[in-house]
């Protein structure tokens, strides 16, 4: 994907907007308990910020900002966090994914902690998987030598 040259407005506006998008994604992630939001929405919005960056500035710069190698490690980390909480509960003698194992003296606090951790895991996995899928599609050259001008 080659960046276009004559899009000064797009570049300037994108540079202003992307930090707000990422901040909004973090807000949605951690305020998902008090308003609409949660891990899935936050992961998608965070990925959308990087997709916007790749669309305007090119895939090379985006790959340098968030390399695929890092994403390969973040995606399983999210699933591991989620399942890890469950296994931790098992090891403590409670049922799988029973959050009272985190803090047996205060179950409500334990629920809050457990939900926070698993939503973080969900957000990490959704963000990294969606961005990796985008990198895979965007970084691929066409197999034949047609360009966009040749197609309908």
């Amino acid at each position, binding site marked *: 994907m080659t960046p276009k040259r004559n899009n000064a407005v797009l570049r300037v506006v994108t540079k202003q907007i992307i930090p707000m998008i990422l901040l909004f994604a973090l807000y949605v992630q951690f305020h998902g308990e008090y308003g*609409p939001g949660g891990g899935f929405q936050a992961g*998608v919005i965070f990925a959308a910020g990087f997709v916007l960056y790749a669309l305007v500035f090119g895939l090379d710069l985006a790959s340098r900002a968030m390399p695929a190698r890092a994403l390969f490690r973040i995606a399983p980390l999210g699933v591991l966090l989620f399942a890890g909480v469950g296994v931790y509960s098992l090891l403590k003698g409670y049922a799988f994914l029973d959050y009272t194992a985190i803090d047996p003296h205060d179950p409500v606090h334990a629920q809050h902690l457990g*939900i926070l951790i698993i939503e973080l895991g969900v957000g990490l996995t959704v963000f990294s998987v969606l961005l990796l899928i985008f990198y*895979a599609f965007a970084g691929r050259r066409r197999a034949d030598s047609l360009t966009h001008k040749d197609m309908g």
Partner: protein
Amino acid sequence: MSEHALLAIDAVLLVILLTTAIAIARQRNLFAAAMMTGLFSLTLACLFVLLDAMDVAFTEAAVGAGISTVLMLGALALTEYRDHPTSRGQHTLALLLCVAVGALLMLAASEWPALGDPTTPVHQHPITAHFLEQSQQEIDLPNVVTSVLSSYRGYDTLGEVTVVFTAGLAVLILLLGVRKESNNEDDA
């Protein structure tokens, strides 16, 4: 908002959804079809907001109008933009089948509860009261959807995260396993 105003806006949004779906069906240029799918998702998100489903509207807007459109355009850039014509017979057969099944389903739909009816089993079941009232004592989170998603139905969410991860893994194996532009093996 009164129920009449809500039903009016609801009807308008449903008409837009149906028109967009029919337009997508008749569209031969797939680029335009992908764009119209983005429009479809955004209208669907508006409909969800009207029906008091905030979390769902959020997700549908972000996922449907954002990521889905980008992925479709990426796939279209790698394949073809035009649709090959199919035979008249295939269209007629499909239309007949869909009209027949649709008629049967509409007959069934006339028995379904009206929008917002509080006497349906969905609202009368004791689990509803449990989610909406007991969750205050047990979890104490204002967003009941989050508490149901993460705590009461946590297994489903674990399965969902695993599905997303597996799909990403499969896409990576498919698209990064064999590179066309270089002869080196991927060493990630």
